[in-house]
């Protein structure tokens, strides 16, 4: 009960940053819009014949891939709090130690929700249409949030275990970029050379993208959804354990 309310206080604090630091708000809003417009109008014609049909294909994946970038804030935020001595301040208070990381992750999952809503709303303004039910859309939203939760834990591990802010940025970027692009987000796996297909097919970004796509525009859902759940659970549990270990060891 108290750990929950302490987490709520720290979540509020992390979200307040978004409002007081306009740079963050602009970044969280402009970045998904920029990706959407660039990919749909620069590559759409070449990949899918027209930007209109490409936006149908790419939008669900764009959200899943965007989650990786949004989750990087977990790593950066935690690392900054350590760097500035703020974690020392929190740890010298009689509060649950877990609330520092938990407050960060809850805030970042909420930010993921915001980024998703912005991306989908912009997509619809540019011609994206849902082809499934409201239930499908709601399930897709839930899946994206769960994916954001798992990635936030992974990023929390980077933020706690790596020392300098630059290393955290680089490591996060090196993780997010190849996984995001070597996936089924921007082009179907079947269009890629065999050796790459082997990687793309097991890439969790592909798995979650396929499930989200199925829930939003139709297609196979059950198999990718099951695989997504396994990946999300696996990433969360392993990262959670690693984060906890690093958090305790860090002095």
């Amino acid at each position: 009960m108290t750990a929950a309310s302490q987490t709520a206080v720290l979540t509020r604090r992390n979200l307040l940053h978004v409002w007081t630091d306009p740079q963050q708000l602009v970044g969280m809003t402009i970045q998904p819009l920029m990706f959407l417009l660039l990919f749909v109008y620069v590559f759409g014609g070449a990949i899918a014949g027209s930007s209109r049909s490409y936006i149908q294909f790419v939008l669900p994946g764009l959200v899943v891939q965007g989650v990786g970038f949004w989750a990087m804030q977990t790593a950066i935020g935690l690392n900054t709090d350590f760097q500035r001595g703020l974690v020392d301040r929190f740890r010298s208070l009689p509060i649950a130690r877990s609330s520092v990381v938990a407050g960060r992750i809850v805030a970042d999952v909420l930010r993921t929700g915001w980024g998703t809503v912005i991306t989908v709303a912009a997509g619809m303004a540019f011609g994206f249409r849902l082809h499934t039910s409201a239930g499908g859309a709601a399930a897709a939203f839930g899946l994206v949030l769960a994916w954001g939760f798992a990635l936030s834990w992974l990023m929390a591990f980077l933020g706690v275990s790596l020392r300098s802010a630059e290393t955290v940025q680089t490591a996060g970027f090196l993780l997010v970029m190849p996984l995001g692009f070597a996936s089924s987000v921007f082009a179907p796996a079947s269009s890629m050379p065999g050796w790459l297909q082997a990687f793309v097919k097991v890439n969790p970004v592909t798995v979650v993208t396929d499930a989200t796509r199925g829930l939003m525009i139709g297609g196979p859902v059950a198999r990718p959804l099951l695989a997504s759940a396994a990946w999300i659970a696996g990433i969360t549990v392993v990262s959670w354990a690693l984060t906890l270990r690093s958090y305790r060891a860090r002095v």
Partner: protein
Amino acid sequence: MTRAAIWVDGLTKSFGSSRVLDGIGFEAAEGTVLGLLGPNGAGKTTAVRILCTLLRPDAGRAEVLGRDVVAEPQRVRSVIGLTGQYAAVDDVLSARENLYMIGRLLGVGRRAARRRAGELLAAFGLEPDAARAVKTYSGGMRRRLDLAASLVGEPRVLFLDEPTTGLDVASRGQLWDLIEGLAEAGTTVLLTTQYLEEADRLAGRVVVIDHGHVVAEGSPAELKERSGGQIIEVRPARREDMTAVTRVLSAVTGAASITERDTVAVPAADPALLGAAVSRLGTERIAISQIGLRLPSLDEAFLRLTGSPAERSTR
């Protein structure tokens, strides 16, 4: 039962192969101010971090108000406040939001947390800037906010780790006044500092540590006496007179002098020796460009308290 508010015994801590604390022990009675004095790297911060439950000792014991820092960290945290070397406040938030957040974390209700934040802002002269993001603050304002942040929970024992390092004279004075006020109100304070002057002004008792050992302990007055009181410093007009000045000062004070570039310094047990030195230099017709009395610097005090390599080099 009058158990010490802070009690430390045989505390040892190593980082890798370097032993930062080597069986350190001291105590502070409730309601007193203890100064932990030492040069950079002496182990001051490590001792404070152990007492604040941020670090586990390798060996030895430490208690705050009878609560063991290793066995009962949460009970220790509920009675302490910590202000670190660098201001650990949220840069992006305002001062008011920072204090409100800590109040809420401590389980204070919304309204009471707002009120407590307001009280502290007023008491620390931060009211006019309370709504501004902390990153726009000056160094002195940040330190005051940091101190205010450690007081939200009304701690009975306050740890101040070099609270005025890097501050200008005016901000330092402001902070000293605030700390003095807290001590008068009965808060037990452990203060680490590199400044003899700061310990002198604030602390009733001082523990001097160096290389993880306690090297001296006592009231500031006792320590100053032991470190040789004031110092007569003379700069001869001509460099050739350095040896003559050294000889005269040693003869007048009966103490070994320290030569540094173009000045000679010697501890003076009695300030009146300055007059004797001036007249003796006059009779010997040694031209002087500067002569005066000053307090020993921390370095000089240390050299004396720690068995002094300086004395060895001048003999």
